[in-house]
C-alpha cells in the first residue's frame, strides 16, 4: 500500500501556465484604480466594448480582476466538491454563511471585508459541523439535513440582516448586496481577500494535490495509508468557505453555488482526469466571469451575477450537447449509426443463411425469403436491401425470364465485400456459441441470444484468440459450418 502511495506523481504540466496567470493578476491589480462608475455613460456599443477590452478604466479593471479571481477560486473548489458528490454542500455553505456575514457586519459596524470573512467562516464551519452532527446522531437523511441547516441558518441571517437594515448604521451600508451581489461595489480590500483566498486554494491544489485526490476518491484507502483525512476535509471546508464568502458580494448567496457547480460539472463532462478537470473548471470559471461582466457592461440595466451564471450555463449546455466524446448529439449519432450497421449485418447474415440452406448451389437470394427469415414485412425488407445496395454489399438481379425490371428489388446477390461481411458475422456468431458451450459450459440451447448481440462487436483480435483457444474449429454446437478465414478470402463460388 505504502509503496503505491510513495510513488511520486510527476509534476503536473498544467500548474506551469498558472504561474504567469497569477503574475498577470497581480500586475493587473497593481495598476492604479479610479473609482468611476461602471457602465455609467451612454456611449455606443463599440465604444463601450473598447473601453472594457482596453481595461483603461479603473473600475473595469476592478471588475475583471474580481470576476477572474472569483471564477478561478470557485472553479477549483467546485472541481473538488463536485467530484466528491458534495455539490449541494456548496449550496448549503453559501446560505449558511449569511448569519456570519451579519455578525461580522455588526461587529465592525461597517462593510469591513476582514470582519465579515472571519464571521462568515465561523458560521460556515458551524453549519458544516451541524450537518455532520445531524448525520451522526439521527436517522435524518443527507438531503434533509442539508435543507435543514441551509434554511435554518439562512433564516437566522435574514432576521439579523432585516434587523440591521432597520438600525441607523445599517441603512446606507449596502449589506443587502450580499443577497444578490453587486460587482461594482467591490473595494480594494475585497480584492485583496479574494486574492488571498485564491492563493491559498492554489497552494492547496498544487502542494496537496495527491493527498486531496486520494481522500476525495477513496477515503478508506487514504485512512489506511495514514493520511489525516479529517484534517484535509476541514481544510477543504475552510477554503470552500473562503471562496464562497469572497464571491458573495459579486454574485450573491444563491448564485455562488452556481459558480461552484456549473464550471466543475462542465469540466467533468470534458475529462476524467482530476488535474485536467480542475484546470478546465478554473478556466471555465474565469471565462464565464469575464464574458458575463463584459455583457453586463454593454447594457445599462444588466446585472453581472446572473449573467456570469448564465454564460457558464451556456458553456455547460454546449458541452452537454456537442462534446465529441460525452455530448448527447455525437452519442445519439453514433448510436444511430451502430443501430443501422447492426440492421445491415443482420440482413447480410440472413442472406448467408439462405445461401447455406441451398448448399451454396445458387448465388441469388429472393428478397421474400430474406423477409421471412428475418420475420419482417416485405416493405421493410425492401428498405433494408436498398440500404445494402447503397453501401455496395449486394447487387440486385431481375428474376430470370422477367424482361422488364420491376420497381422493387426481387432477387439479390452478395458482392465480394458483402460476402466477406456476412461470413464474418456468421463466423463470430458460431464461434461465440461454440466458445460458450465448450469453455463456459453453457447449454447449447442457451447460447444463441448472447451470440446475437456479441457477433456485431467482436474484433478480429478477439476472434483469433477464441480460434486459438478452440483450436480452429470447423463446426458450431448445432453442427453448422463455421466460415474460416480461407472461406472468406476464397470468396463465394457457386
Amino acid at each position: 500500500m505504502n509503496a503505491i502511495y510513495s510513488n511520486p506523481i510527476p509534476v503536473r504540466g498544467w500548474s506551469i501556465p498558472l504561474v504567469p496567470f497569477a503574475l498577470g493578476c497581480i500586475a493587473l491589480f497593481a495598476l492604479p484604480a479610479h473609482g468611476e462608475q461602471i457602465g455609467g455613460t451612454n456611449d455606443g456599443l463599440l465604444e463601450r466594448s473598447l473601453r472594457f477590452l482596453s481595461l483603461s478604466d479603473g473600475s473595469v479593471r476592478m471588475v475583471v480582476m474580481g470576476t477572474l479571481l472569483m471564477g478561478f477560486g470557485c472553479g477549483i473548489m467546485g472541481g473538488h466538491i463536485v467530484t466528491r458528490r458534495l455539490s449541494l454542500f456548496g449550496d448549503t455553505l453559501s446560505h449558511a454563511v449569511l448569519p456570519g456575514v451579519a455578525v461580522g457586519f455588526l461587529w465592525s459596524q461597517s462593510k469591513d471585508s476582514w470582519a465579515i470573512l472571519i464571521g462568515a467562516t465561523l458560521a460556515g464551519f458551524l453549519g458544516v459541523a451541524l450537518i455532520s452532527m445531524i448525520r451522526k446522531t439521527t436517522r435524518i437523511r443527507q438531503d434533509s439535513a442539508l435543507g435543514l441547516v441551509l434554511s435554518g441558518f439562512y433564516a437566522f441571517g435574514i432576521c439579523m440582516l432585516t434587523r440591521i437594515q432597520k438600525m441607523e448604521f445599517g441603512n446606507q451600508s449596502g449589506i443587502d448586496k450580499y443577497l444578490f451581489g453587486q460587482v461594482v461595489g467591490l473595494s480594494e480590500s475585497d480584492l485583496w481577500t479574494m486574492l488571498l483566498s485564491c492563493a491559498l486554494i492554489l497552494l492547496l491544489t498544487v502542494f496537496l494535490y495527491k493527498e486531496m485526490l486520494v481522500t476525495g476518491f477513496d477515503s478508506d484507502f487514504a485512512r489506511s495509508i495514514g493520511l489525516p483525512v479529517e484534517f484535509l476535509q476541514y481544510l477543504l471546508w475552510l477554503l470552500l468557505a473562503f471562496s464562497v464568502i469572497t464571491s458573495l458580494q459579486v454574485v450573491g448567496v444563491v448564485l455562488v453555488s452556481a459558480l461552484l457547480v456549473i464550471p466543475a460539472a462542465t469540466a467533468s463532462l470534458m475529462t476524467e482526469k482530476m488535474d485536467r478537470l480542475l484546470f478546465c473548471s478554473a478556466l471555465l470559471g474565469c471565462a464565464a466571469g469575464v464574458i458575463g461582466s463584459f455583457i453586463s457592461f454593454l447594457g445599462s440595466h444588466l446585472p453581472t451575477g446572473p449573467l456570469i451564471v448564465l454564460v457558464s450555463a451556456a458553456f455547460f449546455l454546449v458541452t452537454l450537447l456537442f462534446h465529441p466524446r460525452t455530448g448527447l448529439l455525437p452519442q445519439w449519432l453514433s448510436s444511430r449509426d451502430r443501430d443501422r450497421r447492426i440492421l445491415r449485418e443482420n440482413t447480410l447474415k440472413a442472406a448467408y443463411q439462405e445461401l447455406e440452406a441451398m448448399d451454396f448451389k445458387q448465388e441469388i437470394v429472393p428478397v421474400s425469403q430474406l423477409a421471412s427469415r428475418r420475420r419482417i414485412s416485405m416493405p421493410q425488407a425492401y428498405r433494408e436491401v436498398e440500404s445494402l445496395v447503397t453501401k455496395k454489399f449486394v447487387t440486385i438481379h431481375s428474376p430470370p425470364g422477367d424482361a422488364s425490371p420491376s420497381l422493387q428489388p426481387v432477387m439479390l446477390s452478395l458482392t465480394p465485400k458483402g460476402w466477406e461481411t456476412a461470413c464474418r458475422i456468421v463466423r463470430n456468431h458460431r464461434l461465440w456459441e461454440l466458445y460458450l458451450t465448450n469453455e463456459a459450459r453453457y447449454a447449447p440451447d442457451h447460447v444463441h441470444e448472447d451470440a446475437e448481440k456479441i457477433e456485431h462487436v467482436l474484433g478480429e483480435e478477439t476472434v483469433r484468440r477464441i480460434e486459438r483457444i478452440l483450436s480452429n474449429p470447423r463446426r458450431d454446437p448445432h453442427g453448422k459450418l463455421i466460415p474460416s478465414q480461407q472461406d472468406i478470402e476464397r470468396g463465394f463460388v457457386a
Partner: protein
Amino acid sequence: MKEPFIRDFDPIDTFVTPWATAADAAWNGQIVLMGFLVCLSCGLVGAFIVVRRLALMGDAISHGILPGLALAFIVMQSRALLPMFFGACIAGLLCSACIEWLQRKSILKPDAALGLTFTSFFALGVLLISLHGSNAHIDPDCLLYGEIGLIPLAENLSIAGFEIGSRPLISMLAITILVILALTIFYRQLLVSSFDLTLAKTLGLRINLIHFGLMLLLALTIVSAFEAVGVILVVSMLIFPSVTAAFFFTRMPAILLCSIPLSVIYSFGGFFLARWLDCSIAGAMVLVAFLCFVCAWVIGSQGGLLQRAPYLRRAVAES
C-alpha cells in the same frame, strides 16, 4: 439614542398590543393565519417529499419558479393572479423535469445536476426581472425572504360583491384545502410508492403518474407560499415539520397530524419573535422552526439525543 441590536423584551408590546384594537387584531390575525396555512400545507406535502428523499427538489423548484413569474409578468404587463400562477407552476415543473432528465441522460452526478439546473433557472429569473422589472413591483429581496407582513395590504378578492379577504390569503387557503383533499384521497398510493417502490409496482400503481402528481402539488404549494415566505424559506417549511415530528412519532398519519400543532407554534412564535426583535416575520418563523427542531433533537422520544445518549457514548468509547 442608539437602538440596541437585541431590543429589550417588552411582554405587553409583544403579546398584547398586536391584538389591542379590532383593526390591529384583524391585520395581525391575517398575518398569523397566512403563516399557519403556509406551514400546514408545506408541512403536509413536505412529509412525503422528505421520505422520498426529494427535500432538495423542493429547494430546486422554489428557485426554479422565478423565470416563470418574470415571464408571466413581462407578457401580461400586470401582476394578474392566474398568469403568474401558471407561469410559476410551469417553470417549477420544467425545472424538476430538467433535473430528472439530466440525472438520467448525462454522466453527471445527481447532486451536480440538481445544483446546476436550479441555480441557472434562478439566474435567468433574476436577469429577466432586472431587465423588465423596474416597474414590476417584484422586489428581488422580497423573493428571497418574503413579505408576509404585507399580506393584509394585498388587494381584496371579492365574489359576487362580497369582499372575502386578501388575495394571497384566499389562494393559500384554497391550496391548503386542495393539498388536504389530495393527500386524503391518494393517501394509500402515496404511502406505498414512497416507502416500497417494488410493492407499488406489483400492485399496479402508476408510479410516474403519482410522482408527477406529487411534483405538481409541490409546485402549487411553493408558488402560493413563496409570496409570504420567499423562495428559500419555503424549503424550510417543507422539511422542518415532518423531521421534527419524526423525533416523536414513527407512523405517517401521526407525523402528518403533527404538522397542525407545529404550524400553530411556528406561526404564532415567529410572529411574536419578529414583533420583539423587529425583524423579518418569515425569517423568525423559520427560526422558531429551527429551535423546535433542535429541542426535538435533544428530547425526542424516537432517537433524541437524551434517549440515545447511552448508545452514543458506547459508540464513541468503542471508536
